[in-house]
């Protein structure tokens, strides 16, 4: 079978599952129309792109999948009623950190490195540890009786700003000093030494 046809079939299967699963759950009455379907689709995109980040061989594609992952997470923040956090997620993660990571990938990529050896030898143990961690945390979440409200609370941006500049003004200023230190440290560490290796 030609490789292009396989790719088409695989992508149709992925898209069909991604669209069909929420529709199926909705028809079964497990999730409601509206926010629930939105949450389900965003969670799917988040988890699939997160898995692609840690499993794909080409590291540039890992970086691009990371952008998709951050975008889906911004959507979930909007769903949670925190639009300012969603905006900051888009600005800081998609706009700044992803671009930084992509530039670092371009600066450190070598043709000579064996691209097939992506994983350490302990990859199987790492997978087991991650699965056990996920199961333990999920059990802990399920076993705890949360005193949670039944409805999400929408966080208005002006209330958030008032809180940020009254109760949290000292951490806010400390963070600005931390960012300054990080900028100076980054420039110092990454600068080229005089007369050193090119």
């Amino acid at each position: 079978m030609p490789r292009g046809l396989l790719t088409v079939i695989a992508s149709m299967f992925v898209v069909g599952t991604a669209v069909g699963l929420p529709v199926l759950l909705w028809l079964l009455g497990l999730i409601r129309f509206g926010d629930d379907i939105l949450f389900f689709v965003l969670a799917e995109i988040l988890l699939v792109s997160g898995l692609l980040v840690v499993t794909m061989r080409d590291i540039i594609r890992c970086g691009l999948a990371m952008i998709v992952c951050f975008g889906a997470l911004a959507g979930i923040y909007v769903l949670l009623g925190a639009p300012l956090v969603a905006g900051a997620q888009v600005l800081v993660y998609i706009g700044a950190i992803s671009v930084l990571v992509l530039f670092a990938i371009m600066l450190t990529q070598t043709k000579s490195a064996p691209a097939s050896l992506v994983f350490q030898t302990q990859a199987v143990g790492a997978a087991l540890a991650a699965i056990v961690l996920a199961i333990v945390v999920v059990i802990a979440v399920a076993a705890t009786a949360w005193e949670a409200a039944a409805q999400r609370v929408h966080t208005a941006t002006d209330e958030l700003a008032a809180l940020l500049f009254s109760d949290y003004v000292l951490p806010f200023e400390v963070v600005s000093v931390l960012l300054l230190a990080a900028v100076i440290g980054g420039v110092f560490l990454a600068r080229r030494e005089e007369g050193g290796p090119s």
Partner: protein
Amino acid sequence: MSDSLEAYLVLSALLFSIGTFGFLARRNAISMLMSIELMLNGVNLAIVAFGAFIPNLARDGSVIALMVMAVAAAEATVGLSIVIAIYRNRKTPLVDEYDAMRR
């Protein structure tokens, strides 16, 4: 489903576990930093979910999440600078070849 705190906490736990796997299993230093970003995002999702559902934490959760984002940006800057500086000396981004102190 989107109105229960548990769903968001389970999602953040899964994202954190994916990041843990990537950090433990990948050989490339930049892949490890990307996995750390995934883990930080999972924690941030849990913080924002707590802020949205626990009445005592309303609004504080968002402020703490913004602080975590700023610290994550600082961490990414310094971490990637260190990777680039090591790459300039050792000519490889693979962490298991940084064995100068073991030989």
